[in-house]
């Protein structure tokens, strides 16, 4: 599980391991928080472990760049400080890739590759070194690298499988998860935002479902069919357009709204949005907290079998970020009356 703290927006996403077919029956009002334990490694949040590995890369790399001779001596080489410096730069690269990226998984994967390189260099030094090397220290260094490699591999696998379950299932991530035989594509996203408008206004805006495309980026349109039913159209670049019919399963004005897709939809989904009083900060009029809880599952029908439906094909980017961004836009629309844009001219820097 990944939890993201944002400015007035908290969101989390949980990959579900259950099969999609039975999921539908459990969706609806009052869904429980997602299972904890997903995305964890040795009791720590896997992204924390990844960050730790990133910092380890930076620290080790900096030592290799700045004090190559001392590092070479430490691992049992009498010479080779130039190579150690190069390895240091590479190490720093891994760290930057992990810490600066939105998704740490590729950076951690690159560390696994780097570990392999380190091990083969240490092996080559042992074989070719003769008297130039201290075999005991080299073996110690190799053992240390092996230990770190194990952690890197475990972390990379966790990140990848988490990414898959979170809907980013492409390439290596899909491969890893597929091998484990998990049901992919099922998805549970939660997110919160605080909006400086009265609760009734926020509820009414959401209840008018045709407003949803104003802040939900992937939504092309919602057409209200009657009191309870509506028709949703989503633009999904990878599989074209997806459509489904949704019905409101419960509504409590100013408090709660829940919906689910009806049988036979392209995308089985259900969600609940809760509205509760937020802070008033001494102004007498309270802001509104909106908590959103959405579950998607792969379609059981022909579409699921033929195109291999995953949430990634519908949402593209990380779905928890998508929902958080949607809520941020909801806040913008309700507070400022517009979706904020930084559209700007820019130079080309040619010549």
């Amino acid at each position, binding site marked *: 599980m990944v939890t993201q703290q944002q400015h007035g927006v908290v969101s989390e996403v949980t990959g579900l391991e259950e099969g999609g077919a039975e999921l539908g029956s459990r969706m609806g009002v009052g869904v429980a928080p997602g299972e904890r334990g997903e995305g964890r490694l040795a009791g720590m949040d896997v992204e924390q472990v990844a960050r730790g590995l990133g910092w380890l890369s930076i620290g080790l790399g*900096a030592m290799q760049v700045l004090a190559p001779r001392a590092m070479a001596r430490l691992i049992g080489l009498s010479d080779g400080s130039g190579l150690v410096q190069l390895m240091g730069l590479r190490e720093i690269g891994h760290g*930057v890739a992990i810490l600066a990226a939105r998704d740490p998984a590729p950076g951690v994967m690159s560390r696994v590759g780097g570990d392999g390189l380190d091990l083969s260099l240490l092996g080559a030094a042992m074989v070719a070194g003769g008297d130039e090397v201290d075999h005991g220290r080299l073996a110690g260094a190799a053992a240390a690298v092996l230990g770190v490699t194990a952690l890197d591999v475990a972390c990379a696998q966790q990140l990848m499988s988490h990414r898959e379950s979170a809907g980013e299932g492409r390439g290596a991530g899909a491969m890893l998860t597929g091998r484990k035989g998990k049901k992919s594509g099922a998805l549970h996203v939660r997110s919160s935002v605080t909006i400086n408008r009265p609760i009734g206004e926020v509820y009414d805006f959401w209840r008018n479902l045709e407003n949803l495309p104003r802040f939900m980026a992937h939504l092309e349109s919602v057409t209200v069919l009657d009191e309870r039913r509506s028709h949703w159209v989503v633009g999904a670049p990878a599989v074209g357009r997806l459509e489904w019919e949704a019905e409101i399963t419960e509504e409590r004005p100013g408090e709660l709204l829940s919906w689910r897709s009806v049988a036979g939809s392209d995308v089985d989904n259900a969600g609940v949005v809760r509205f509760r009083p937020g802070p008033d900060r001494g102004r007498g009029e309270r802001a509104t907290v909106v908590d959103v809880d959405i579950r998607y599952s792969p379609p059981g029908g022909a579409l699921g079998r033929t195109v291999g439906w995953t949430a990634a094909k519908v949402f593209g980017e990380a779905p928890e970020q998508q929902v958080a961004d949607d809520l941020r836009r909801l806040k913008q629309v309700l507070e400022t009356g517009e979706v904020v844009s930084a559209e700007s001219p820019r130079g080309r*820097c040619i010549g």
Partner: protein
Amino acid sequence: MKAVCWCGTGRLRVEEVPEPRIVNARDAIIKVTSTAICGSDLHLYDGFIPTMQRGDILGHEFMGEVVEVGPGVTSLSVGDRVVVPFPIACGNCLSCQDGLFSLCENSNPNAWMAEKLWGYSPAGIFGYSHLLGGYAGGQAQYVRVPFADVGPIKVPEGMTDEQALFLSDIFPTGYMAAENCEIRQGDTVAVWGCGPVGQFAIRSAFMLGAGRVIGIDRVPERLRMAEAGGAETLNFEEADVLEALKEMTGGRGPDGCIEAVGMEAHVHGVAGVYDRVKQSMMLETDRPQALRQAVQACCNGGHVSVAGVFGGVIDKFPFGSAMNRSLTIKTGQTHVQRYMRPLLERITSGQIDPSFVVTHRMSLDEAPGAYRMFRDKQDECIKVVLKPWE
């Protein structure tokens, strides 16, 4: 139109770019008549701020004439002469309504980037990296101003551009730095860094009742300008700052200590390589020497006010000194919208003429050379004003 574009570390070009257009109802388009280079622009120029992209238009201190307004802007009309605050603020969110405009919750469309780095996102800022919104800046002939009904204020007739321009940033920034010292009548305030913000902090400290202000720098013309503003001065290359401040304050230390330096490291050699790593890690090469000194120098129970820009983490911060001696540390990007009108009052009533700080006036075409001169402190450069239409 012409605009100053960032094309990589140390590489600026004045390019022909498309003119901005109204995107949202609360936008205005401003024809820029004067724009200044800020000390914090040098951090972009030197590549210290992450998430800059080639082609980004720089500049967050600017003013000009309204040439177009969206249907949601009723407070401005075409032809109005306005000065624009550097933080973009909606005026509607909880932060804006608390007067914390530089923490606007809606104006940074790239808030997720800032959240990764800092936990939560502050407001978007003109021409100051994608981390802070990715908005085009005002070192251009035209600029799009979002939430134009909240930020820009009209400049009274008869006031020159150079008198009004610095309401966009450095005058309010120096003023908020002084205000954060919670100065009591007769207090002694020390100011680290006598660049443009330090100069305004010195003058603001006097306005707020300081009895003595001590300016600390090493550049002779900056120390002279501080003296012209009524400050005593210390050259940190010639004096032991902590010892000197102790002596000057009867062994107590200054009541308020203003840090107006920020992350301005010029480190070479091996340490320079290490700094590069820290920069690419979005940690900046924060050189917190002035901040450390300000904490160490401050009198027991005093205020340390940080106006300098920091980006990431700092090393070896003397927090034990701050904790054990009951120091109050206050900081923040300036909530410019909160200060523009009261400070405009001070200009119109003749209490201050902010144009004193200008040392160079150049055309927009000369921007690349102007940045270099300002960074290297050549030709006694303290503040450059660029004219996009001359």
